């Protein structure tokens, strides 16, 4: 369903370890939402100097107040800094739900949900939806340190299994999620992997899944300026079913991509064989037009 733009009232602002969880009243977004979709928020108020919207994966929607949307963020710059100062009853300009949601299996399957940092946030709504489909959810969550592992408790409570990794060893295994990936996939007999993490991790997850021939659905949270598909700022090289690589927009064609379709090694570049790359020529010149 098409996204909407609403003025949503902030309901609650909670600290959750290193994160802030913010709930906004936005019935039209809540009812349209499907896991993996995101919202794009205008920051800075009426006279803002910050023109880019800030994108956040939706953590959860609830039916109270007609429909609320919760998202989770860390303060990493001026936009999130401003958001963190917002209080209950402030009003935010929110666009959503945006982008392609996580596709879910038709039949029961063993699903591994891999999240790094705030990237874990969108996985819980997904887990709930997977459960509706009779799927099992195993969690593999990582972060630099214990306070930046989002949702460890919930993962343990609601997942069939939950493995945590931290770079400093302050919670779970010391290391990164990629270190534990093969072990978890084997133990859980994973049928499909869902991931939300930095590109480097998604690349590793996709590579491993390739070796095991497991499908991966990867939520790419790369910088975006509009979230609605008009700025062309969020492109990455993705191979289509026709075998042609195109520079597609993460906000519209993603943020969830099939891991085996994204050319992870070429993210941040224009591959020479991408459609319209410098020197690129159509592979099948149109008959009769060749001169």
């Amino acid at each position, binding site marked *: 369903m098409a996204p909407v733009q609403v003025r949503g009232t902030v309901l609650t602002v909670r600290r959750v370890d290193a994160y802030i969880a913010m709930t906004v009243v936005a019935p039209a977004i809540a009812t349209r939402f499907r896991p993996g979709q995101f919202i794009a928020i205008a920051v800075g108020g009426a006279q803002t100097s910050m023109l880019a919207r800030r994108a956040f994966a939706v953590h959860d929607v609830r039916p109270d107040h007609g429909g609320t949307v919760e998202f989770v963020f860390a303060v990493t710059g001026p936009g999130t800094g401003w958001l963190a100062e917002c209080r209950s009853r402030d009003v935010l300009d929110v666009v959503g739900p945006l982008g392609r949601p996580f596709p879910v299996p038709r039949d029961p399957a063993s699903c591994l949900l891999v999240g790094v940092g705030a990237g874990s946030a969108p996985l819980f709504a997904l887990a709930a939806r997977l459960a509706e489909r009779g799927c099992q959810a195993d969690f593999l969550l990582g972060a630099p340190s214990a306070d930046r592992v989002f949702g460890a408790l919930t993962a343990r409570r609601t997942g069939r299994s939950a493995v945590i990794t931290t770079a400093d060893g302050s919670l779970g295994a010391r290391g990164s999620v990629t270190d534990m990936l093969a072990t978890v996939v084997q133990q859980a007999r994973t049928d499909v992997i869902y991931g939300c993490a930095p590109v480097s991790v998604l690349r590793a997850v996709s590579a491993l899944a390739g070796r095991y021939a497991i499908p991966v659905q990867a939520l790419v949270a790369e910088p975006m*300026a509009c979230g*609605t598909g*008009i700025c062309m700022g969020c492109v990455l090289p993705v191979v289509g079913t026709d075998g042609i690589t195109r520079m597609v927009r993460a906000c519209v064609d993603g943020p969830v991509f099939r891991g085996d379709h994204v050319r992870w090694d070429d993210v941040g570049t224009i591959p020479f064989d991408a459609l319209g790359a410098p020197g690129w020529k159509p592979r099948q010149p149109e008959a009769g037009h060749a001169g």
Partner: protein
Amino acid sequence: MPADLRTRLAHVELPSPVLTAAGCAGAGRELAQFIDIARVGAVITKSVTLEPRAGNPVPRLAETPSGMLSAGGLQGPGIDAFLQRDLPWLLSRGARAVVSIAGHTAREYAELATRLSDAAGVTAIEVNLGCPDAEGGGRPGRLFAHDPASAGQVVAAVRGSGRWDIPVFAKLSPDVTDIVAVARACVTAGADGLSMINTLPGMAIDVATMRPTLAAVHGGLSGPAIRPVAVRCVWQVREALPDVPLIGAGGVRAGTDVLELMLAGASMVAVGTALFHDPSACARIQRELEEELLARGIDRVADIIGLAHQPAVFAADRHGRLS
């Protein structure tokens, strides 16, 4: 009674002076999720090129204070796909299409104009002169818009190839010592109107990586930050060429910004970067414009075009000074 927002784009009448700016609304499809694009004056499309283009690597955009730096490299599907897919879609929605074209040589522009002449439903052509002149020699990065002669050549080529009844607007860049000279050259070469301003060349350096933020190193600055430059360019060109219709653009975010550019001399105003921030900006701005006109007792938006050039007494006299 709401004010009459009709305005003229050369001999074509538009229902509103509020347009979308080239490259900031694709071909209208995404915005149509948020607003009725038939009610926008016109959609100026993303500059279309002959061939498909993959554009520049990311990062393509960087936020700056009240502005945006961009270097997208004109990613697009090429003229064929545009004519097959985008233009018919726009027309099916009842929207008016001003098609922006971009090329490396005057010939490319001419070919694009020819292709557009064969298509039905093109309201006007906007010639994006903010492209590197492949044959320009000399300084690398020299744009057609940097030189009156090159700019005039492109406009003449387009005028000579396009249909006579499709108005041609030449889009100027602000990073020249004398924008009036370029404006004159374009009009002499046959432009029906002028569009200004394109982005200002700028750069940002990422202090974390200590390297240029944009993959393309240089980018174009847009957004409210540059509005004073846009107002100045429109004012200067209006002063020199009072009879040439102008599309103003640069940092428009609110109804009062439309007023400002129109008072300076624009007949129409395009909204660009603000759309990234507010996808329903055009509808909101149009509403705000109506309210501003109402508050001033102005019946027809066309009456305010260039009004700020008139002596203070006269302007105040006509519409009552607000305080």
